[in-house]
């Protein structure tokens, strides 16, 4: 009697878990069916997206994933004999979650290249693993300068790092003739790093105004300080949500200084958050304006029925580099990594060619501004 | 019978505090429950007020089964208690404490002030302390306040739990005097006491509780003369 109960209970538990496995197991979009014909043949290769798809930073990851999706879809259409799959590793941008995902990617031999990791924090936590496993990565968005100096052979990025972006911003602010510039950051690795570079670059023209809490709501102490200092320009290193709140509160508080931001603010979310206070703000970005490549813009619109958002084009270039390697007959991580070393091609955003540290050759910094509630790319580029 | 308790069983966790007690209070009577600490007196009172759940048995009030109804419904029916340790709200003034007695009734202000006057007539000391916080009163005053508060609800049955506890002998006599005069106004009283002599003198009838059972009952004077009761509760 007792024995049968034990059996029944365990059978029930196992049954329940099996149902869970059967019904939820397959959530990746890998599709590796090989079809006959075409120029290139390959079997069961995948490139992976690594970054946040859900969670607070999910939007950015979704942009990147779309760029990868587009590149792979175009490749698969052109090469019926080589259908490349996509694996998505959703880290939620959290360095604590990233290692278990990275190990999974490393263990999956069919993954031959990674577009990502999307953020600098998670990059530090897992790039060492990819390096040891020889799994090549091209990040479309992690701009922390340190990343290129870790000696990782597998590291590449598809855009300029903050050590290029920072001076670009300084150049722009100086060119605009601002004499007293408040420098604010959000105390994040990205924002503070950039703000420090900008502050150092501006020298005597900079007024240090410390950090704000991006999750907080009230920035009146900073507004008061800006008013008191009588600044004619303000640079904020951080992301768009906080930038929007800050811009609005500065405007309401009667501060009329010219606002400068960096790539983390290049999102319509900034305009939504700031409202009319966003007008005239200047946003610098190492990313190309969306209309800089008409073909890409048209293809993206056709596939997703929307404009490409920040980093979608960089992700497209990153994925394209891997796909070109596959097209060249490279079928494993080592030869793809080797291929990237000599890669030199005009991407949709810039010339994609890496130096030995993995920094990309084309490192133009672009200036955007907000006009009538829309982001407008300025033709006068710096860089 | 005004209140009838039949075969009441009540538990505290796993401990059975009342093991099947039965008793009753007739209209106009003073009935007292006496017994040592832990005999179940206070449990009985709380169960009648409805703040302890009944495991078995039933409680009737004016012939109606009230075993399962909520405490505030019982107050509406006319059962009100001045709890053990007085249960004064320390952060409320004497007036506010008294007005808590009319909580269920709501009541018009004119009625309320008439009731207040009545209580002040019984307990003139409370009138002097009317704006003082309950927590600052002396023990005797707090006891008066607790009784006065219960009276504010215009009860038909007044439950008094240890009204003499911790009071000086002179005050005790005064309290019992007041209990009698309340009774004379037509309010029935169920009185729980450790001070058995005074209680038995005041009561029409009495029950002796021992570890969850009723072991003896009779009129107040009968039990006063009972040698066993004298030995156990009246100090020989």
């Amino acid at each position: 009697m007792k024995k049968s109960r034990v059996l029944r209970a365990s059978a029930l538990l196992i049954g329940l878990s099996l149902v869970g496995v059967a019904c939820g197991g397959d959530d990746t979009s890998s599709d590796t069916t090989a079809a006959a014909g075409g120029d290139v043949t390959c079997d069961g290769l995948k490139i992976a997206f690594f970054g946040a798809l859900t969670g607070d930073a999910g939007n950015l990851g979704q942009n990147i994933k779309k760029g990868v999706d587009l590149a792979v879809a175009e490749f698969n259409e052109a090469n019926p004999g080589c259908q490349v799959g996509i694996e998505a590793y959703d880290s939620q941008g959290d360095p604590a979650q990233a290692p278990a995902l990275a190990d999974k990617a490393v263990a999956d031999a069919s993954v031959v290249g990674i577009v990502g990791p999307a953020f600098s924090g998670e990059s530090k936590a897992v790039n060492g693993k990819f390096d040891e496993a020889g799994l090549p990565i091209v990040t479309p968005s992690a701009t922390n300068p340190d990343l290129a100096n870790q000696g990782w052979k597998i590291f590449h990025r598809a855009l300029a790092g903050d050590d290029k972006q920072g001076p670009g911003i300084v150049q722009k602010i100086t060119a605009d003739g601002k004499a007293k510039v408040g420098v604010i950051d959000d105390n994040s690795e990205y924002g503070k790093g950039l703000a420090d570079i900008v502050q150092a670059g501006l020298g005597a023209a900079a007024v240090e105004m410390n950090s704000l809490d991006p999750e907080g709501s009230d920035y009146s102490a900073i507004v008061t300080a800006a008013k008191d200092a009588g600044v004619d320009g303000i640079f904020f290193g951080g992301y768009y949500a906080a930038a929007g709140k800050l811009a609005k509160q500065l405007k309401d508080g009667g501060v009329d200084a010219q606002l400068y931001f960096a790539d983390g603010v290049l999102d319509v979310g900034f305009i939504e958050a700031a409202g009319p206070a966003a007008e005239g703000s200047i946003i610098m970005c190492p990313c190309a304006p969306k209309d800089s490549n008409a073909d890409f813009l048209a293809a993206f619109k056709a596939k997703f029925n929307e404009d490409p958002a920040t980093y979608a084009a960089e992700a497209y270039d990153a994925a394209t580099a891997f796909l070109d390697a596959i097209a060249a007959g490279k079928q494993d991580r080592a030869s793809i990594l080797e291929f990237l070393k000599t890669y030199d091609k005009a991407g949709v955003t810039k010339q994609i060619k890496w130096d030995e540290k993995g920094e990309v050759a084309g490192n133009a910094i672009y200036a955007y501004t907000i006009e009538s509630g829309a982001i407008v790319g300025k033709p006068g580029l710096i860089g | 019978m005004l209140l009838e308790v039949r075969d009441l069983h009540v538990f505290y966790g796993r401990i059975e505090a009342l093991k099947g007690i039965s008793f009753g209070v007739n209209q106009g009577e003073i009935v007292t429950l006496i017994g040592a600490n832990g005999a179940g007196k206070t449990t009985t009172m709380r169960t009648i007020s409805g703040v302890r759940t009944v495991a078995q048995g039933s409680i009737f009030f004016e012939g109606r089964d009230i075993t399962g109804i909520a405490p505030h419904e019982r107050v509406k029916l006319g059962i009100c208690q001045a709890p053990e340790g007085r249960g004064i709200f320390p952060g409320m003034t004497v007036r506010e404490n008294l007005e808590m007695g009319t909580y269920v009734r709501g009541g018009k202000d004119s009625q309320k002030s008439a009731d207040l006057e009545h209580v002040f007539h019984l307990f003139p000391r409370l009138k002097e302390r009317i704006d003082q916080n309950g927590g600052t009163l002396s023990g005797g005053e707090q006891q008066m306040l607790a009784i006065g508060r219960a009276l504010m609800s215009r009860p038909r049955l007044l439950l008094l739990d240890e009204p003499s506890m911790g009071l000086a002998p002179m005050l005790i006599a005064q309290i019992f005097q007041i209990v009698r005069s309340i009774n004379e106004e037509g309010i029935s009283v169920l009185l729980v006491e450790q001070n058995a002599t005074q209680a038995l003198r005041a009561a029409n009838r009495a029950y002796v509780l021992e570890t969850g059972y009723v072991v003896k009952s009779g009129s107040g004077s009968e039990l006063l003369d009972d040698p066993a009761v004298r030995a156990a509760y009246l100090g020989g």
Partner: protein
Amino acid sequence: MNPVVRSLRQVGASLAGAKAGLASRWNAMGPTQRLSAYVLGVLALYLAPWWTEIPLLGSIVDTPGTQFTTVLSDRVIIFVLVALGLNVVVGLAGLLDLGYVGFYAVGAYTTAILTSSHASLPWLLALPVSIAVSMVFGVILGAPTLRLRGDYLAIVTLGFGEIIRLSAKNAEWLGGSRGINDIKHPPSIGPLKFGVVDPKPYYWLGLTMVFAVMFLLHRLENSRVGRAWVAIREDEDAAELMGVDTFRFKLWAFAIGAAVGGLAGVQYAGKVGFINPDNFPLLLSILFLAAVVLGGSGNMHGAILGGILVSYLPERLRNFQDKRVFVFGVALVLVMVFRPEGLLPKKVGTRKAVAAPGEGGAQ
């Protein structure tokens, strides 16, 4: 009775039956049999990285999208260690700590400072220092605040955890928001390589730490100290009246809890090699507390179960994507409504509930 009620009852009955069956079989075993059962169980745990290879079991335990072994080494073992430590504070001594992540952070940061950013000691040397530093922090927080009661202590500990995180974020000396990387790994022993890619050695090391901590805490629980803690939890005033030096024992609970939390931090830092302040958010403190209470606060095995569930389930439920946190929240409410003492409640009556008079205070 409707079918759902009936099947709920049946599941309950089968589970109870299974429990009773196991218990009776356990009781029927001789000492050698029991010992071999223990050994087999421990062995099975050390072999956990290969569970995914077993046909049926594998498909049940494997985590979709993440490496099962890394989940074990980076999440589960860490959470179990933390839950064991926090259980001393919350479950045994009854002190509500909402800032436990602070000690975890102190352990991790001390290791990071000593092996990477300000010195280059080997990990093995950083280990005892980090534990000691965490303990000191436990005393630093405990000494001024343990006189506060219940919920006041909760908010103060919460504040303490935040002060530690924000200080790490703002102090350049601690790496600021950039964090600290290149933290040394534990030394490789023979074939056991503590490298970057293979998580198995870290899991084994962590599991060994769990057993060691369990052994020490078990000894402590059944000692004079353990009885004093329980007395404090049950009724602090009574314990004080009986001569238990409540302050001293509360401080001990805090220090020991902090030490175990610090140990978890050391293990984490040594494994991942990179930490930054965002690894130690306030939310993690709350998750730790949820683990202890969910499993059964006051019961070591309950705390372990809670630690496993809170760290493993989100990974197992990855196919819920961004709904898993919602599921977790609902599950917390449901468990508390129907099992308010946790999944494995502390045993009542098997241990003396209060210390004998005078016992606790004796020097």
